[in-house]
């Protein structure tokens, strides 16, 4: 298996707001025959994936299946050795300018938040708009406050990350990524490092974001999130894409034995 699905089948019903690029091709990410090795260890094997603009994808799979590595390749935090990754019409190569231009358009949220501890929440959010987008500070701060309101913590703007709870920190991290006005958001297990009572507040923000038409790639074990939000669920194991399907089909009628086993384990409680 591992055949890439054609994307028309899963294009979301409500079309994403097109922010002035309506004439463009709807494919925003294309991954073709991508391989990655760590030394001799073959981590990612022949991945093929096409993501349409505004599509929301959840990637799941057992630990060590390469799912985090995969989305880290999409903004080149990891480099691939074979195949092609094209993000927003820019192919990821060794060229630093291309990598930087892709990273400007792709926001990322990490499992460990990775907020900058020496900067306040507001400064965390403004850093990249000011230095990379060359936005005036007033404007950058206004935008940052807007997003902090959207993630419901405008009152924490002048605190330092260490003064916030895990859930708050992760919401700041989402706001920080959004401040760059990215066209794509990558989530690398955003709720795995959180205490149970904080997971919901982060998921709520992510659901709200999904409703706004953002293209999202999300590595997560939150199957409830996948059911309500995802347009497509991808199951990875052993560095391969084993199965992909819309959530209702994926959860009710998994085709591959490995998928069935995984779902049994994860849904039994």
């Amino acid at each position: 298996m591992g055949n890439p699905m054609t994307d028309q089948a899963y294009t979301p019903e409500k079309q994403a707001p097109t922010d002035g690029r309506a004439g463009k091709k709807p494919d925003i990410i294309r991954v073709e025959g991508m391989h990655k090795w760590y030394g001799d260890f073959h981590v990612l094997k022949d991945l093929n994936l096409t993501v349409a603009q505004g599509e929301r994808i959840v990637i799941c799979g057992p630990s060590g299946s390469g799912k985090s590595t995969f989305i880290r390749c999409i903004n080149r935090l990891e480099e691939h050795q074979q195949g092609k990754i094209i993000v927003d019409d820019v192919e990821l190569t060794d060229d630093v300018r291309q990598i930087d231009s892709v990273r400007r358009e792709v926001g990322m949220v990490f499992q460990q938040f990775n907020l900058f501890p020496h900067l306040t929440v507001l400064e965390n959010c403004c850093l990249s708009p000011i230095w990379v987008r060359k936005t005036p500070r007033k404007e950058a701060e206004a935008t940052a406050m807007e997003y902090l309101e959207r993630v419901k913590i405008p009152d924490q703007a002048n605190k330092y990350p260490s003064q916030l709870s895990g859930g708050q920190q992760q919401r700041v991290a989402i706001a920080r990524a959004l401040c760059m006005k990215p066209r794509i958001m990558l989530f690398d297990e955003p709720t795995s490092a959180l205490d149970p009572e904080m997971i919901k507040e982060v998921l709520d923000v992510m659901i709200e974001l999904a409703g706004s038409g953002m293209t999202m790639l999300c590595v997560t074990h939150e199957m409830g999130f996948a059911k309500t939000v995802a347009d497509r669920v991808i199951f990875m194991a052993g560095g391969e894409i084993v199965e992909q399907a819309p959530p209702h089909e994926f959860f009710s009628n998994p085709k591959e034995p490995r998928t069935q086993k995984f779902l049994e384990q994860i849904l039994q409680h």
Partner: protein
Amino acid sequence: MTEPTMKAPRKAVRPVKWMRENLFSGWFNTVLTLGVAYLLVTSVGPLLNWFFLDANFVGSDPSACTGAGACWVFINQRLNFFIYGFYPDELQWRVNVMFLLLAVAFVPQFIERFPGRKWLGIFGIFGLPVVGYFLIPGGSFGLEAVESSKWGGLMLTLVLAYIGIIASLPIGILLALGRRSEMPIIRGISVVFIEVWRAVPLITVLFMASVMLPLFLPEGVNIEKLARALIGITLWQSAYMAEVVRGGLQAIPRGQYEAASALGLGYWRRMGLVILPQALKMVIPGIVNTFIALFKDTTLVLIIGLLDVLGTVQSTVSDPTWQNVATEGYVFVAFCFWVFCFGISRYSQKLERKLDTGHKT
């Protein structure tokens, strides 16, 4: 699972690839690599020549040094002096016994699975000083007495460092406990003591010990120069030791103190049975590091006229019979210190890593 197992691409050209990535990535790195390589090539050759090819190794007097390189004959001839100072030749076996015991006690510490190495270590800390106390100065058990003014060289260096560290340990522990005490006066005294000693250079301490100590003592009481130096070194070192031990005490979780109190143990039992054994184990690397620092600092005693290993070399390189042998002498001393310090620091790093993983959950 039917996909073929693939090998990483471009594997065959690995050394070339390694060099491109690690030596020649970008023009800046290339320039850097070439520059460093040039310096290495131009300096290693002459150094090798000086050390080995043009050097003289055998002979019995300065006339044997005919080559353009190092005159190792000098080290050869004076080696006895560099190791034992003026310790009488026929009694040097006593020093050799101590060297041997030292090696027996501490070399196994580098070997992970050596049987009974813990007991050898304990002997090295508690038993060895006792043996040394009788063996080196002599004067009892029918051993001929050797005045401390005759001690010198590497042996004196080891004596200073060893006694300095062993004697400062208990004082340091008391000071550390004092600094963490709840009694303000005890705490104040400890803080002042520690901070004053840590603020002043060792050399002023040694000056003070050699000049002022005789003034402090009642008339008629006289202590020899070596003992004065040792008192100075011990007091100075105990301040550093206290800070190391305090680090360990602070690292013990509060729960341990509370649990010990809950068992109904009094202060000294609480510290001696529960807290200190854990804290001391944790600070072994720190103690080893201060030992290395002290070991290097013992060279300062030559300024107050004691002949440690550097002192013996320094006093012979100015000997007019040997011309221009200063470099050889310094290289010899540097080598002695380097082997000791590097070896011990490797040991402490290994220990640090081991203790570190032991404490992570």
